[in-house]
């Protein structure tokens, strides 16, 4: 008779359904569409290397590069976001939208390369280095 008590509780307790256009909120760490911040990107293309589905494409041009992303190809694994050293990539905590034409969600950004930072002047040899070298030499 367990099933009958379950049915009765369901009848009394009301339905747990969300009425159609309402959608449940996604949790905080939800991995949705990848967002790109051109200001932070250093042009290293590690994201293209790490992408499992070849959703990210990186093309170098003269003084610019183009970063393009196809959400239809994306598997939302987050490897690109993890690998980005400058935190230019992040994932939206939102469900990707439904689309009707193929390739409708593709995005491409052309970013001008930043001038390379000047190399820092060579550090003067400190007192610690001569002592450290024989130690490492001895250890080998």
């Amino acid at each position, binding site marked *: 008779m367990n099933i009958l008590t379950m049915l009765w509780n369901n009848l009394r307790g009301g339905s747990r359904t969300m009425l159609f256009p309402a959608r*449940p909120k996604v949790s905080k760490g939800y991995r949705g569409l990848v967002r790109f911040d051109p200001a932070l990107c250093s042009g290293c293309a590690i994201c293209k290397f790490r992408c499992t*589905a070849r959703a990210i494409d990186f093309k170098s041009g003269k003084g610019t590069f183009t970063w393009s992303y196809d959400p*239809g190809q994306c*598997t939302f694994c987050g490897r690109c976001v993890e690998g980005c050293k400058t935190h230019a990539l992040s994932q939206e905590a939102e469900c990707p939208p439904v689309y*009707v034409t193929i390739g409708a969600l593709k995005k491409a950004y052309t970013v001008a390369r930043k001038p390379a930072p000047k190399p820092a002047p060579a550090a003067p040899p400190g007192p610690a280095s001569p002592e450290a070298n024989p130690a490492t030499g001895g250890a080998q």
Partner: protein
Amino acid sequence: MNLWNRLMCYCRRRSPWLFHMNAGSCNGCDIELIASLTPRYDAEQLGVRLEGSPRHADILCITGPVTHNSVQAIKTVYGQVCGPKAVVAIGSCPATTNVFIDSRTVDGPLNKHIPVDVFVPGCPPRPDAIILGVAKAAEILANRAALKLPVEPVAMPLVGPGCGDACACAAATAPATVASAPVPAAREAQP
């Protein structure tokens, strides 16, 4: 649009019957599709019914990158779905083959074989996204049928070869371009 057309449009939107087909999917999207029938999301509030036969359904929901073994089956089932129909590609796999790109056993995205109306991205998509996709497909189907646009020109056999039965819509529209889609002979020869 006269009264009958308006009535049909109204009813077609509110009664989308699905047939689900797995074209080599990992089953993640299939599970989420079944999850959309559970109490929390309840696709039945839109009148969605998961049907057992493609002849009963309006909307064909396909998951999975289309593997070689499933290409003929997909085309056959698409031909068996009757009347005004729509196709929903659930997940990233049917839209773009996702992580299986360049795989030897995968034969291209779904819209290489049959016309697709709605793409629901996600790996797997959430059940509420799938329901949204189905609702959009029902709307597209109803509008397309109401405007009597030339539609899905496929004539596919029934069960078994050479049966010759096909949907009546195929006779009225352009000859099949999809049925004659070039399939490399070398791949066909593989068991």
